[in-house]
């Protein structure tokens, strides 16, 4: 069995802030999103939505710590409009050259709920590992990313790359 990740598309936010949405994503069995981002407030999270869905369908559990503090665990909590709580506190504009690196992967089942894993962090603030269930068996047709609560914009110096994979 071989598997190859294909590069589907890449977006760089260099001007005005915006929500990044990938809508021409093909039909892969799994997707992977690599994002490097900062947040103007420096205090919120990267979130992901599938198919623009804002209903109560994203269950998230995570481990996280901040600035060397104790690792805390949070059991599965269902969110309605946050999407996948994938990243961590991102650098603010005072650290506009710093990055929060986020790696999200999820299976694109059309018969089962979609499981996802996400790891993200900024070396001078926080590290978070999340397990997610997106409770929908609908085919994924769009993937959106934005910062935090609510689902607001990604600010400049953000790069988001989307990959897809089928199992040969």
């Amino acid at each position, binding site marked *: 069995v071989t598997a*190859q*990740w*294909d*590069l589907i598309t*890449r977006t760089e936010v260099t001007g005005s802030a915006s929500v990044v949405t990938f809508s021409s994503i093909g039909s892969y069995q799994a997707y992977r999103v*690599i994002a*490097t981002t900062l947040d103007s407030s420096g205090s919120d999270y990267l979130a992901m939505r599938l198919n623009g869905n804002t209903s109560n369908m994203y269950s998230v559990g995570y*481990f996280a*710590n*901040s*600035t*060397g*503090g*104790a*690792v805390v665990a949070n059991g599965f909590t269902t969110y309605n409009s946050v999407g996948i709580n994938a990243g*961590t506190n991102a650098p603010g504009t005072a650290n506009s*050259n*710093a*990055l929060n*690196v986020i*790696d999200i992967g999820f299976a694109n089942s059309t018969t089962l709920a979609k499981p996802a894993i996400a*790891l*993200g*962090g*900024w*070396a*001078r*603030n*926080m*590290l978070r*590992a999340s397990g997610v269930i997106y409770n929908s068996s609908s085919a994924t047709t769009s993937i959106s990313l934005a910062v935090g609560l609510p689902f607001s914009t990604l600010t400049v*110096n953000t*790069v988001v*790359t989307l*990959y897809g994979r089928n199992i040969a």
Partner: protein
Amino acid sequence: MPLVSLIEKKSVSGVNSVTFSSIPATYRDLRVIIYYATNTVGNFNGTVRCQFNGSTSNIYNNELWNAENANLLTQASIIGSNNFMLGSGGPSASNNSSNRNPIDFYISEYRNTTLRRNGLSNNWGGGVLDSGSASSGNPYNYAYTGALEQESQTALSSITLFLSGTDNFIGTTMHLYGIG
């Protein structure tokens, strides 16, 4: 377009340090996969470390967790070190013939001269501890994850990987991949 291209594979033994140099500027991200063991007599309780572009300046930051068996050993925020940590522990002299410790190190935007060098490293595995280890359990499990930042906006052209202390890698393979 394929995601992954193998840039270089190194098979090393009897060395403390390995450098991937002249990394081509033709990819978006980089990934380093390491399977290592050491020649340590007794338990290897050290770490695998990394420097970018040969810099030994105190510009490396590291937010990390490190666990062994059921014990969370370290949860640290390290600012201003002269390297960063990619993983810890691993097979030593008495069991390095049959065990390896895996590290998966992702480096994003390695050519970007506006943004700093950043990455994520994961080190999960299991193995057989030397007898007499302070960390009980046989086999044992370990886990490390870290967010990494080098406060540099210089394009990355070389990666140096080394063991803390004076021990050497034994029977170790390191693959450098270009992504995107």
